[in-house]
C-alpha cells in the first residue's frame, strides 16, 4: 500500500520534472499558443498551486481515472490503456507459463547432472538467453518465420479476416473459447506463439539458473536423502519432494521474472504490432507523448506491485509457517 502511494509520487515527480514548459509538453505546440487554452489548462491542472497541492490534485485526477490526453491518439490515456492492458497481460501470462514449464525441466536437469555436460550446456544456453536483445530477436524471428518461412501468422492479435470475439475477459484466446469459436481460438493462439517465444527466452534464462540453485539446495537436504533411502522412484522424489521443497524460492523469482517480462513487452510488442502496453509505450516514447508514457509507467508499476502482492499471498498458501506470522 505504501509502495502504491510511492509509485504515484514517483510518476508525479517525473511528470513535473519535464524541462521547459509543462503546458506545451502536455498540450502540444499548437494548442499551447492559444492563451485561453493555456489558462484553462493551468487552472484545471492547478499548475499555479504549490507542489504539495498539485500532488493532491494529481491524485484526485487519478482516482477519477483521468491521466490526461494522449498526443498521439488524441484520446484519453485511460481509454487507450483499458484496451491495451488485457493484450499485454495475456502475452505476459502465456510467456510466464511457457518459461516456467521449460525452466523447471532445464533447471532440475542441470541440478541433477551438476558439473556434467548437460549442466554446462544449460549454463551456456541460459547465459546467452540473458544476453540477447529481445527487440532484435523479435525482429529476426519475425523476418525468419513470417517473411521467409511463412509458418508464422503476420502481425497483430488476429488475422484481418477474422472478427474479434465479444469482450468478456479481454484475452482473445479465452474469449474465443467462451464463445465456442474454434477457428478464432486457433488464429489468436497462433498469433500469440511467436511473441511469447521471444519474450520467454529471457525469463527462461533467469528462472532456469535460479531453479537449478534451489534444486541443488533441496537435493542436499536430509528429507530427500530419506525419501531416496526409502526406495522411492526417481520421478516420485523429483515431483513430490524436490520440486515441492524448491517451490517457495521459485515463487519469489517468478515475481521478479514478471517484471522482466513487462520490461520485455515494451521492446517486443511494437515489432509484432501487438496492440498492448508495449506498442503504446513505443509510440508514446518515439513521439514524446508524456501523458501516454506516464500512464504506461503508472499502470505497469501497479501491475507489477499487484503480481508481487499475489506472490506474497501464494506464499501463505504454500507455506503454513507464513500464515502464522
Amino acid at each position: 500500500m505504501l509502495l502504491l502511494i510511492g509509485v504515484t509520487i514517483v510518476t508525479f515527480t517525473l511528470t513535473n520534472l519535464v524541462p521547459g514548459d509543462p503546458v506545451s509538453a502536455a498540450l502540444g505546440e499548437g494548442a499551447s499558443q492559444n492563451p485561453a487554452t493555456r489558462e484553462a489548462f493551468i487552472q484545471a491542472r492547478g499548475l499555479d498551486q504549490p507542489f504539495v497541492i498539485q500532488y493532491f490534485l494529481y491524485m484526485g485526477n487519478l482516482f477519477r481515472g483521468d491521466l490526461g490526453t494522449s498526443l498521439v491518439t488524441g484520446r484519453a490515456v485511460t481509454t487507450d490503456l483499458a484496451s491495451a492492458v488485457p493484450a499485454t497481460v495475456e502475452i505476459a501470462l502465456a510467456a510466464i507459463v511457457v518459461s516456467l514449464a521449460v525452466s523447471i525441466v532445464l533447471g532440475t536437469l542441470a541440478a541433477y547432472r551438476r558439473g556434467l555436460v548437460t549442466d554446462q550446456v544449460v549454463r551456456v544456453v541460459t547465459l546467452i538467453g540473458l544476453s540477447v536483445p529481445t527487440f532484435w530477436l523479435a525482429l529476426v524471428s519475425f523476418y525468419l518465420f513470417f517473411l521467409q518461412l511463412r509458418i508464422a501468422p503476420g502481425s497483430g492479435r488476429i488475422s484481418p479476416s477474422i472478427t474479434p470475439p465479444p469482450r468478456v475477459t479481454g484475452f482473445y484466446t479465452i474469449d474465443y473459447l467462451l464463445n465456442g469459436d474454434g477457428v478464432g481460438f486457433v488464429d489468436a493462439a497462433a498469433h500469440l506463439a511467436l511473441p511469447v517465444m521471444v519474450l520467454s527466452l529471457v525469463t527462461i534464462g533467469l528462472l532456469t539458473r535460479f531453479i537449478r540453485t534451489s534444486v541443488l539446495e533441496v537435493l542436499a537436504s536430509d528429507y530427500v536423502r530419506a525419501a531416496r533411502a526409502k526406495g522411492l522412484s526417481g520421478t516420485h522424489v523429483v515431483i513430490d519432494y524436490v520440486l515441492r521443497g524448491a517451490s517457495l524460492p521459485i515463487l519469489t523469482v517468478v515475481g521478479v521474472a514478471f517484471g522482466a517480462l513487462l520490461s520485455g513487452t515494451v521492446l517486443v510488442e511494437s515489432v509484432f504490432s501487438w496492440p498492448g502496453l508495449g506498442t503504446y509505450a513505443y509510440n508514446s516514447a518515439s513521439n514524446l507523448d508524456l501523458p501516454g508514457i506516464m500512464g504506461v509507467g503508472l499502470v505497469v508499476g501497479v501491475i507489477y506491485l499487484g503480481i508481487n502482492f499475489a506472490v506474497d499471498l501464494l506464499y501463505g498458501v504454500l507455506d503454513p509457517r507464513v500464515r502464522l506470522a
Partner: protein
Amino acid sequence: MSAERRGDALAAAGWRTRMRWPRAWRSPLGIVGSVIALAWVIVAFTASWWVPFEPNAQVLPRLQEPGIDTLLGTDGTGRDIFSRLMTGATVTIPLALMLVVAAMVIGTVVGAVAGYFGRWVDETLMRLTDLVMAFPTVILAMVIAASLGPSLFNAVIAAIVVSWPQYARVTRSLVLGLRGQNYVIAGRLLGHSPLRSLTVDILPNIIGPVLVLATLDIGAAILLLSGLSFLGLGAQPPTAEWGSMISSAIQNFDAWWLGVFPGLAILTVVAAFNFLGDALRDVLDPTAEVSKENQADRAASATGTPA
C-alpha cells in the same frame, strides 16, 4: 604509523582478492568471455582511427548487400554498416562501463551507510531503494528518460537511477552480516571512525560479490542503453548506435543486414561480459554456490544411490 598499517591491511586484502582472480580464467567460459570482451573494448577505444568509412558519410550506393567493398552492406542512406557498427562500440561500451561504475559507487555507499548505521538511516534509504525497485527497470528508465528529454546523456542518467538499488541491497545485507563480527567491533574499540571501519575493515570483504554483480551488470547496462535508443529515447540520429540502428531497420524489412549485424554486436558484447561475470562469481562469491562440503557430500551419496 597508522597510514602504514592501513596500507598493509589494504595490500593484504588486495593480495587475497588478486590470488583468486586468475582462477576465473581457468574455466572455458571465463576465457571465451574475456577474449571477446577485451576485443570489443579494444575496438571501442580505437575504432575511430581505422574504420574504412566515415560512419555518417552517405557516400555509397544505398542498400548494398554485404560483399567485398562494404563488408556488411550499406543502409538506406548509403552509409557503411561495418563502419557504423564499429563506431557504435565507441559510443555504447565506454558509456556502459561508466554507468556501471557510477551505479556501483552510489549503490555501495548507500547500502554500506544503511547497513552500518541501521535504524532510521537504514529505514529511509531502504524504502527509497524499494521505491525504485517497485518498477520494472526498462519501464522506469523509459519514463525517466522521456521526462528528461531524449538524449544519450539522459538515457545514461536514467540507467544509473534504475541500476544502483541492486548494489545497495547486496551491500547492505553483507554489511549487516559483518557489522557484528568481532574483528569489526575490535576495530571500533581501537577507535576506528565509521568511515575507517567501513573502508578498512568491511570494504575488503564485500568487494568480491559487488564486483561480480558489476561485471554481470555491464551486459544489462548495454541492453538497457540500446533498448532505450531502440525506443528513440537514447542516441539520436545520425549517431551510430546499435539500438537505433535496429530501430531504423524496421522500416526496411527486406534488407536483413540492416538489423541483423547490430543485434549480433549487442549479443556478443553482452554475452562476453555475462560469461566473464559468471566465471568470476564462481571464484569470488562464495555465497552464490552450494558449499564445497555439500558438493562432496552429494557426490558421495550420488555414487551410493544412482538417481
